[in-house]
């Protein structure tokens, strides 16, 4: 059963507009959420994170929102730029989990058109 779900495989946005990438999770024990960005032929790189005790975290053009009651988080990119075109992975961590690993979603491919 998939614990972290990114239901949109792809998203296309015009340059300058807002990109909204969504992520749903099922495990209420998750206490920390991260977004990773991945360009082709490169490894994922950390983008932004949020603790379960917060509902918003902002870093420049990137903002992550967390709705715990809905078990939903979203990544907003404003304004979107062509260089933001990449695959975005949502990841979640289990509080005190024995494995300590991140659970990743399947990713959403963002295309920002000039």
């Amino acid at each position, binding site marked *: 059963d998939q614990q972290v779900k*990114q239901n949109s495989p792809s998203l296309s946005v015009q340059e300058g507009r807002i990109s909204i990438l969504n992520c749903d999770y099922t495990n209420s024990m998750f206490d*920390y959420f*991260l977004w*990773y960005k991945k360009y082709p*032929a*490169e*490894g*994922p*790189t*950390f983008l932004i*994170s949020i603790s379960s005790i917060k509902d918003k975290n902002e870093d420049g053009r990137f903002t992550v929102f967390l709705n715990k009651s809905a078990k939903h988080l979203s990544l907003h990119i404003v304004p979107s730029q062509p260089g933001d075109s990449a695959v975005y*992975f949502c*990841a979640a*961590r289990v509080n005190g989990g024995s*494995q*300590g*690993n*991140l659970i*990743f*979603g*399947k*990713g959403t491919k963002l295309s920002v058109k000039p």
Partner: protein
Amino acid sequence: DAGITQSPRYKITETGRQVTLMCHQTWSHSYMFWYRQDLGHGLRLIYYSAAADITDKGEVPDGYVVSRSKTENFPLTLESATRSQTSVYFCASSSDLNEKLFFGSGTQLSVL
């Protein structure tokens, strides 16, 4: 160069062969991880290591072997490669179990 490096970048092998993917990090991070990325599955954890000589299974460990004799190296071995192990493999490291991961550039493995 500082960071985390994987080798080879690309590898083609045949079913039944043994193949080892290398991972080296220069940060002295305690934790190292191996993930595989497949279409429709995202990133899945194969094995991870908390320190030298300490390893543990992840979500998809079958068919893989790891070792960690030195903190900086974490090789992944496919003892008898199968076509289902065709994938892109990413090594990652972190300073602490709950810190963000730093990923290598990946190894694209094709098993024919």
